[in-house]
């Protein structure tokens, strides 16, 4: 079952001679439960592509259909609501709210949606993230790996249709990177979470089911990774 469909996506910056095609005519689909890595050199357009899929950036042309909804046609606020319900985003620099503790950061999208805290679900996520003893700590009191785990927890709490990770290990040491990737794999395998992971690290990319390679804003390779 297709969960994501990108059709003729283009993203341009600038005009005239300084026109840059960050993403140039990209089309692909992702099935539910797939773990996809997007790799490429710096400036190849992988992060731009991910941001467009996440609805935080808009394509110049093309369509992005997630779970049957064309998010390029949504208004800004509808897109925000869609994002908090259907998409989880994990960034390289965690992007946690510094004044909220781990628990609160995880609950944030749900609370923004007006839902009350689901304590059981929260405890389960916290256990899942192995953050039981750090749950009431502020981001600045956590290590990079722990902060990234909170970020993943925040993305997973709403059980999104799509988990998008932008260089989630880019700011971590190798041990923490391994932990984060293991956590993502676990989410994919145990919870059937669809994940799109952007990375420039081929060894991490290789942990996914499928690798899409970008160069100059185009897909130059789309390969399945054998188990």
């Amino acid at each position, binding site marked *: 079952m297709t969960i994501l469909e990108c059709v003729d996506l283009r993203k341009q910056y600038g005009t005239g001679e300084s026109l840059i095609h960050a993403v140039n005519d990209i089309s692909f689909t992702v099935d539910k439960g797939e773990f996809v890595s997007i790799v490429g050199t710096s400036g190849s357009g992988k992060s731009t592509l991910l941001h467009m899929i996440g609805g*935080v950036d808009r394509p110049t042309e093309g369509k992005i259909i997630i779970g049957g909804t064309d998010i390029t046609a949504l208004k800004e606020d509808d897109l*925000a609501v869609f994002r*908090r319900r259907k998409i989880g985003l994990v960034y390289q620099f965690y*992007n946690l*709210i510094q004044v909220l503790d781990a628990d609160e950061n995880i*609950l*944030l999208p749900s609370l*923004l949606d007006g839902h009350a*805290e689901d304590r059981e679900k929260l405890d389960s996520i916290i256990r899942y993230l192995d953050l039981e003893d750090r749950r009431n700590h502020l981001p600045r009191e956590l290590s990079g790996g722990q902060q990234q785990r909170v970020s993943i927890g925040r993305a997973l709490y709403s059980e999104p249709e799509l988990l998008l990770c932008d260089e989630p290990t880019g700011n971590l040491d190798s041990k923490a990177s391994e932990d984060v990737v293991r956590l993502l794999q676990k989410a994919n395998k145990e919870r059937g979470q669809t994940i799109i992971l952007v990375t420039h690290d081929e060894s991490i990319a290789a942990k996914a089911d499928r690798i899409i390679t970008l160069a100059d804003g185009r897909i130059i390779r789309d390969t399945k990774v054998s188990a």
Partner: protein
Amino acid sequence: MKKNMIYEITRRYLKENRKSTLIMRLSLILITALMTCVFIGRDTVMDYLLRVSEEAYGKWHIAFYDVTQQEYEEIRSLRSVKETAAARTRGFSEFAASADPDVPYLYIRQEEEKMFEWTGLTVAEGRLPQNEDEIVISLSAKESGAQIAIGDTVEADCFDRYLHNSSGVTTVFPFLSFSIKADETLEMPRAFPVYVTEEEKHFYDDHEEIHRPTGFHHTYTVTGFIEPPSYETSDAAFYTAISFLDSSHIEDGVFSGMCRTDGSAMAAPDVTRLIGYERVETNDRVMAFAGSSSDTGINFIVIIAQVFFLILIGVASVLLIYNAYQVTAEKRMQFLGTLASVGATSKQKRSSVYYETLSHLLYALPAGIAAGLALIAIAMMILRPYADALVTLVNTGIQTAQSADVRLVIRPLSLLGVIVCTAAAALVSSILPARMSGKIGAIDSIRANTVQKRRSHRREKGIRTGGEKMLVKALLRNEQSGGRSVIRSVVTFWVILSAAVCAGTEITQMVRYKLLDLNDTAVEETPVQKNRSETEEVYSVFLFNQQDLEEEILSELHQTSGIRDISYYGTSIFGARVQTQWASEEYREAMREILKQYDQTGGEDAVDQWIEGMSWFSVYALDDEVYASLVQKLSGHAPSENSCIIYDQVTLSTDGMALSGRKADSFRVFEVGSATVLQAGETLQMATPAYDEKKNEPYDRELFFQIDAMAKKEDLENILIPGGGTVYVLTDRSTLFSSGLTDNLSSSIVFIADGTDPAAAALIRKYDQHNIDSRGAGYSFTVKGMEQKDGYYVIAGMIRIVMSFFTIIVSLICLLNIFNSVSAMMVKRRRETAVLRSAGMTSAQLWKTYRLEMYFLLLRSLLIALPIGALTAFVIHSLMMSRFGRFTVHVPVLLLSGIALAAFASIPALQRLSFHYEMTGRNIIDEIRQENH
């Protein structure tokens, strides 16, 4: 846990960022304090001025005289009249108990109880009368030895006093505004003295005081003694005696009365319409502060000042709050962008800003109102001595009196005004930051580039030299370096300061013109006030037609130690009439504009008619030596024969014109730079009224003055300060005497005396006791402290203090804004500084870089601020001119420059402080790692 996460995050964000939160709250506290000053301060000051004025001038609003029973009833029934009180003058009665032969009468009035309070009747001993058989007598009677005590009876057999002139010529009593023609019999003014002393026997022979009985007889019991009312002057022939007037008896006869209005401006016109302006007197100063003056000038100025300051505070709030949000934009972008990435809507992001503003308001409103009340209390403490001076001046002239107690007037509606206006200003100020916050997207947080405009910078070619210079250039190019915020705050400071100072000066000037009776206060002979020591006082001796005494006093003063800076001023009371066409087009234009306010339809004929009336120039004589040096200075030669200097800078106002008691449509004032077409070298032909004793008829005596120079105000500033709507002909004492303008010569000798010098002190005591009576022969007295000469100046001084307070607080808010910007700029530099330090830059090099950058920023700010400030001042001035006429305003450039210099000098100091605080003891690696956090 179900709570509004946006509010919760905002609340924690504020807690986390203590410094910016504190600055924002302090700013809002100051804004609230200012709003409190505008609303509650206005009420308090106006209430205080009203009470001080009531104390000084009485609580009555309108007095009316000689009204019949029917007229009195009509006045009472007016809707604009709130309450009335009647009085009945019974006239004079012989006072057998008097011990002073100069004061042989009682002046008996009956008043309703309310009038006791309205006229400020103060019981010194005993009690006020409670029925028509009781009476209170002026304490001055007892103090001058009258054999009278409480419980004694007084037999009143009343009469009116008349004067018959058998001297054969008209006699003028200038200080009583009274003149009587030959063989005429007129009722004397109330303050007229009695002719009984041996000294005035020669005068007494030519004038006869006649008593005409009124038919009123009554026996009174004395119930107390009262402080002498202001109309009981020391030269008057009577002691005041006031009895009770029963309300049921007011239908009997002709009355005078007083009323208080309902606060509407219609009362005075209503009463005037009923009985004519000749019998109506208004207590203008009290009515002005009560808001019930038919003259809308004061009320309008107060409203203008209030609206102006509301606008100023509003603009300052918007700029301040916008800037405060801008300096925290980066942090805000980070958390709002993150919120956006997890699905926060625009509305939710906007609500974060509004919630922040509201939470600041929650603290700022009570604290700001308290601070505002404290400021008002301080301002009132400063105002108090001015008010004391006013009461002193009006009531006693010499002794110090205490004014009304200061009390804060907190009206619920005003309090609501403070809250609503502050909240509105803060929320309106938040609209823009909220809109900007609403637009922050997740991508902005990720890239941290929401306010960064992609703009290509021109790269400099060639070899780069000087690390600090290169850095400064780069920093100035970088829009994210915080420099814009500093420029914005400095420009805001300057523009707001310019607006506040200019408008404050304009409004003060307007109030001064409005309060100053331009005709009454024509000349200020006050230059000798300058450079006085603490033991010295300024004294004046006023004389009328006493040339011999003038000589004697001048000689005496010059020979006495401890006395210095003796200045002579002399003027003919009636002046002289110019015989030629003299009015300039500028003067005619001002006159046209004034007449328009009186709806004069006579066109140029009306203008000519009024100019004809203004042809009486004041001839003013100075010391011969002073005058000679003035002529020398202005013309470069010695005074010619019959020399004069023309001073023709005049000020015309609708108040000064006062056409036949009518009120102008609105207040206008015009300063005329050159009222005449006269020029140096011309001969000025004038005429003055004289009386031919042989022919026994009046005639015009011709005078010719040689105009040696035309003077401007600044030429005379160390000699005298002319004012009003009259052209001055300045000459010397000798010329004045030789021109024969001494028939009605009013002169004053102003000097400084050191109270610790025995000779000077003895002379002052002698002058104090040497009060010659005022029957035209001569008159002299002394006044201490000439700077307290006129109550109008005191009130204008109070207004100036109020304006200064506003300016200081507005400046403080703007300074806080600058501090916030500078501080935020240095905070933004933490990581950058760490990187530079890691690259080997020393603290001295860093400081040099940042200091240099700040100088450039200040220069850039000034280049923007100066023209905008000047434009703002011009717009304010133009608006005032379009509404009030044409007058010059002396913007205190030195003060303004001083404040600006001090403020600008403090900016690098603030930066140094911030640099020290932000840079000292910080770990380079930690700071570098702060990237994106």
